[in-house]
């Protein structure tokens, strides 16, 4: 057992940057998969609800009406966060693949896209939630 862990751990990418398993790069990949799968399932539902415009304006408006509540609003922010991460990390993956220095800077690029994510999500969440929050706390 000790042998196995020793082999697995040997060459952790701290210095050399060869081993991917268990490292930051692996977690960015895990998050990429999870956000991708979540988006796929959302898209399935989103196309079905939009297809209701072909049934009747009333059917469409009724379903959209159920989306106009604070909980769904919060899910929307989560969805935007997931898609934004997937997009930014996708760009990072492309840079790792096609840019000669990409693999060397994969960690720095991860921190960079996380910084961009935060910078976009803070105002983004504000604009998406401002209406819900004012409604909940006694706005019109």
């Amino acid at each position, binding site marked *: 057992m000790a042998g196995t862990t020793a082999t697995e751990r040997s060459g952790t990418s701290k210095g050399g940057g060869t081993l991917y398993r268990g490292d930051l790069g692996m977690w960015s990949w895990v998050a990429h*998969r999870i956000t*991708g*799968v979540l*988006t*796929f399932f959302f*898209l*399935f539902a989103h*196309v*079905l609800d*939009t*297809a209701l*415009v*072909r049934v*009747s*304006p*009333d059917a*469409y*408006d009724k379903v*959209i009406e159920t*989306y*106009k509540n604070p909980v*769904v*609003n919060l899910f*929307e922010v989560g969805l*935007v966060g997931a*898609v*934004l991460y997937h*997009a930014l990390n*996708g*760009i990072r*993956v*492309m840079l790792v*693949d*096609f840019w000669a220095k990409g693999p060397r800077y994969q960690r720095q690029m991860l921190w960079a896209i996380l910084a961009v994510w935060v910078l976009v999500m803070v105002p*983004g969440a504000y*604009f*998406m939630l401002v*209406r819900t929050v004012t409604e909940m706390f006694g706005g019109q």
Partner: protein
Amino acid sequence: MSELTLAKPRTPRRPAARRSNGELYSWLFMRISGLALVVLVLGHLFIMNVLDGGVHRINFGFVAGRWASPFWQFWDLAMLWLAQIHGGNGLRTVINDYARKDATRFWLKVLLYVSMVLIIGLGTYVIFTFDPNITD
């Protein structure tokens, strides 16, 4: 005496399996479509959730106004096709990685492909046949 036919040393027992470049093309497609989707999807999310004020503004009339323009019809059509194939390809990889039995893998992929065809077909149909005067 007939000539003895001996295989040359190191001749493979069977001719090399013909390898297709399918996985290479799928890998390349993920990058190219991903780049297009960054613009299409992030643009869509930004316009819908921030500029246009989010789901609270959306109703049948909003959709009618939007799809009155061929530009947005084309935008949504491109987004639908690319996102479905990109996402379907991603899910195919996920299924290949985690399904343990051949049967499970097969049926999950059948389910995936059916849902992709359904969503692409339905979405395309809706974009092209949308009728703002459906009311009557």
